[in-house]
């Protein structure tokens, strides 16, 4: 009888102790790992604005200077006239255009008829399409030009009005959108950074139609810039 009691007690303790030890040792291991892991910094990346590979230090510097001088870093939406653009970019027209060559797939060219500053339907659609391709970009550049036909003052005025027409359409189409503060307007008239015929190959509102140098310069170049400056 006593032998049975001892056997039962041993069994009772054995069957209870083994799982308890197993559970407690597992918890102690977890506690050790928890203490170690709480000191480690998280390796999960943080959400951030886009900063594409083409955003070289030189390009970022230029974008910052242009954006700053043209008001994009302040209240936004203010435009730069040709003289400002030349001064802040401090480079030739060709070099200025070359800065934007990595944007061949990102930028769109909105075309206008001669001496016309209103957006046609295709131009409106092109502007909206570009606006929707925002991604993580920080700035929206509108760079308007005129062809070399006519006098310099008229061309400057035409390019300014074309830039403004893009802005006005965005304001009408996306009222209250905070990103409108990220829009920078540059109007270059016809005396600085004229586009070459190679830009006819870019995405444009009149794609498929004949395109000469004059046609491609009666335009607004619109693009989101994927550089965190």
């Amino acid at each position, binding site marked *: 009888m006593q032998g049975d009691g001892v056997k039962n007690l041993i069994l009772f303790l054995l069957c209870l102790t083994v799982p308890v030890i197993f559970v407690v040792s597992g*918890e102690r291991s*977890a506690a050790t790992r928890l203490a170690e892991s709480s000191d480690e910094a998280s390796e999960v990346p943080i*959400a951030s604005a886009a900063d594409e590979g083409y955003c070289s230090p030189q390009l970022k510097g230029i974008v910052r200077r242009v954006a700053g001088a043209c008001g994009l870093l302040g209240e936004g939406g203010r435009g730069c006239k040709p003289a400002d653009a030349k001064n802040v970019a401090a480079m030739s027209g060709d070099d200025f255009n070359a800065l934007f060559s990595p944007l061949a797939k990102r930028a769109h060219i909105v075309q206008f008829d001669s001496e016309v500053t209103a957006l046609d339907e295709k131009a409106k659609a092109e502007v909206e399409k570009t606006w929707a391709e925002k991604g993580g970009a920080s700035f929206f550049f509108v760079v308007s030009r005129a062809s070399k036909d006519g006098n310099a003052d008229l061309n400057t005025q035409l390019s300014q009005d074309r830039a403004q027409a893009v802005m006005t359409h965005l304001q009408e189409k996306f009222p209250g959108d905070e990103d409108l503060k990220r829009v920078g307007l540059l109007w270059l008239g016809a005396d600085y950074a004229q586009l070459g015929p190679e830009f006819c190959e870019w995405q444009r509102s009149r794609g498929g139609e004949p395109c000469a140098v004059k046609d491609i310069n009666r335009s607004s170049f619109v693009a989101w810039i994927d550089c965190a400056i």
Partner: protein
Amino acid sequence: MKGALIAVAVCAVLGVAFSMTSTSDFISHLDRQVHSIHCSLIPGAGAEVGESGCRTVMMSPYSSMFRTSMWGGIPISLMSVAVFAYLVMRSMTFLLSAKTTKRDTLFLIAATGLPVLMSIIYGYIAASKIGEACTVCIGIYVVSGVGFIAAIVAHMSAPPDDGGPAVGIWARYFGEGCSYVFIMVFFYIVFAPTSPKSGEGCGTLVTKDYRDNDTLGLFIEMSKGSKVTGLAVLDPLCPACKGFDERIVASGIDDKVALSAVLFPLDSTCNWMVKESLHPGACAVSEAMLCDRAGALDVLDWAFTNQERLRATAKTDEAKVRKELEEKFPKVKGCLGTAAVKNKVNKSLRFAVQNALPLLTPQLFIGDRRVCDEDTDLGLEFTVDRMLQAQQGSAPSSSSRRRR
């Protein structure tokens, strides 16, 4: 009788092994990290890191008790270990004793009946509430049933008792069984690791007034009625978000918090922060949700249900997913794919940038405090409860649950 008692003991040992496997998986997660989960009837084999029925079951609120009182709660499998360990002891003592009678074996039937009853209850919960089966759990169900049958056989072949009072001895046996459970739970509670981070959270929102300034309609209301606000950062095609959403609903957190969702699709079609689409098609589904905010939760539920298929389809042909969305939810026609709704998705992503959120989903904010990622599964109820207490005014409201 001895053969049947040996069968009961073997079943109980197997029950301990299966229950211990589940308990071990549960305990390993107390370090707040992601671990593999054993999903095989062979102890030690079949560990899986990704989504599986065993993970879904373990992460569900039904896998443990008192979840708001301690991180992760007390696992049901721990009590299963205690019960099977007791059955090992009980069947062995009967086996080794020369005086085992029907009085003892009748108690053994009742004792082995407990795991059978629990197997029926949890089998029903797994089928009806969770919708997933856990291989190890099925192992427990089987050995419970076989052990019960073996106990009946042992009783049928046991010698009759001496006619003495049975209640006293049964009470002693019952007390021993309860002591197994209480001692096991006591040690579990005493040695469970704790972390102060659970109540403090991991960061805060920068844009705290997002609900008041939602002029574009970026935030989707998931529940309402409570004074405390919450924000879930979701990707409609993210498997973890599906499980997270189920836990939110099953644990009743959506009743305690006025929860909104902001979309963060991990799909490179619209999200510049991911170089490869982790969840192809998530941008299209997000657009659909923002096109019809009133029906957004229906779109979300449908997307959660069809996640795998939608991701596979979108990987080769996203347009097909868009077409399916338009057919299933006609209200999104004429909106899906437009500049306006793409702009909204973009703004949702920029919300993450403004608040420097980690590139992962799901995320949960209670008030403006972010629930640490490691607290969004097993420790969700405990952490949210702590945060709600800190927020004050967190009395559960009478709001109706919108999604069941």
